[in-house]
């Protein structure tokens, strides 16, 4: 079923700033994400979008600002005020993170099935048979050949590795998934298939999603809302189609007009 939209936000980011010495990673970023919403973050390399994603997803404590998540038990909580153990539990259960490079998100020296099963075990599932059943069900959902379940991910193609990462992350039915350039480095036909898959799963499960990409085509298809970053700051944000069809900021206008027509 579709997540209800009139509930409060799932994630609330306020005044988020990350500095690397004198360098600004990202500065004074604000946004709220509602259940089931897909937010795209675009900008050129070095614009701070990956820094923002790392800070918002609990991987890197920001210099300033807060990231609050609507936890199942206690409501909105500042994730960096939680204990390390609580934050890890949150990341294992309610969150998923899909990395650009599958090697950062997968364990390359254990089988595909174990990569998926491992996350189930992390949330307390102990029965081998049911772990294997649920794992294979998820491998099928991401269109993986079950004959490859016991193979190591390093024998897989880039597209298969990305699909395995998706299965590994979604198996615990998270409410929020972060994706960092999930389709770059894949060839176009594989990209389209992955996008279609991600979109279908996000829709079916009502998952909220934050996708960082430099590909405006990807956000046009996947995201409801869009943030445009430049030099660490958000220069424009709004509905995806509004930002792309009626960009207000000079930089967004340049970005949109630079797309090569096919």
């Amino acid at each position: 079923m579709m997540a209800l939209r009139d509930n409060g936000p799932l994630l609330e980011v306020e005044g988020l700033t990350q500095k690397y010495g004198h360098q600004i990673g990202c500065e004074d970023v604000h946004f709220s994400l509602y259940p089931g919403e897909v937010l795209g973050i675009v900008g050129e390399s070095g614009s701070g979008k990956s820094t923002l994603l790392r800070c918002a997803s609990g991987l890197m404590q920001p210099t300033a600002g807060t990231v609050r998540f609507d936890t199942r038990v206690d409501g909105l909580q500042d994730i960096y005020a939680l204990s390390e153990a609580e934050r890890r539990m949150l990341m294992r259960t309610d969150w998923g993170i899909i990395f650009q490079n599958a090697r950062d998100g997968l364990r390359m020296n254990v089988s595909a099935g174990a990569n998926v099963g491992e996350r189930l075990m992390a949330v307390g599932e102990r029965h081998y048979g049911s772990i294997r059943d649920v794992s294979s069900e998820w491998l099928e959902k991401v269109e993986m050949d079950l004959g490859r379940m016991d193979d190591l991910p390093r024998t897989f193609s880039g597209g298969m590795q990305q699909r395995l990462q998706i299965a590994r992350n979604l198996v615990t039915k998270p409410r929020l998934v972060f994706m960092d350039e999930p389709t770059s480095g894949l060839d176009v036909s594989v990209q389209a298939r992955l996008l279609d898959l991600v979109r279908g799963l996000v829709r079916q499960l009502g998952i909220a999603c934050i996708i960082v990409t430099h590909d405006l085509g990807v956000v046009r298809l996947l995201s409801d809302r869009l943030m445009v970053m430049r030099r660490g700051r958000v220069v424009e944000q709004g509905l995806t189609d509004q930002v792309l069809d009626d960009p207000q900021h000079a930089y967004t206008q340049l970005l949109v007009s630079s797309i090569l027509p096919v």
Partner: protein
Amino acid sequence: MTMTDNNQNHGQDMIRVESLMKSFTLHNQGGVTLPVLEDVSFTVAQGECVILAGQSGAGKSTLLRSLYANYLPQSGQVLIRHDGELVDLVSAAPHVVLDIRARTLGYVSQFLRVIPRVGTLDLVADSLLARGINEVAAREKAATLLSRLRIPESLWSLPPATFSGGEQQRVNIAMTLVQDYPVLLLDEPTASLDAENRQTVVDLINEARQNGSAIVGIFHDQAVREAVGTRTYELQPARSAA
């Protein structure tokens, strides 16, 4: 602010546009500003179909896109009745606009823009599934509409990318009309259709209106305008940039 009362009162006001202004500033072309809409105000009630008229460049498409929050006006309001309340699209939070688009406000654009690789029937059923309608009912409703629009069943499993212009336009119409939106915005939905299909689309629009939808549309074909319109709203070209 004066609100013109509706003479043919079919029901509640569904769209209320107040003092809408829209211009485009082209930052990468010397910052030139093009005014398009100046002080546009009108209302549309349930059961009305308002035709936007005016010469080319008068801002018909800009107005229609502003009514969908696809374009961002500089000032004024676009009030849409959603769950019984008038909500201003210009100032509403994105998740509110998305909810209005999901349940109240439908838009048929001139061009089909869809995810590659997804079959036609799935595309048409998609918005129903997103609202939680069960798969069997959603696909059945999509199939009925596609048949009515004469998309051959043999094409339903195929993505529409390779379809003819007219077929793509009919898929586009089906994707919106599969829902019974209380407010419908139509941008030239009959532009590349033959007479028979044009008549089907005219019938669908009239049925939606008779079922209480409030409709605003751009139609270049005079016969279509006469067949679907209940009223015309004439746009004057904005004065040129200062």
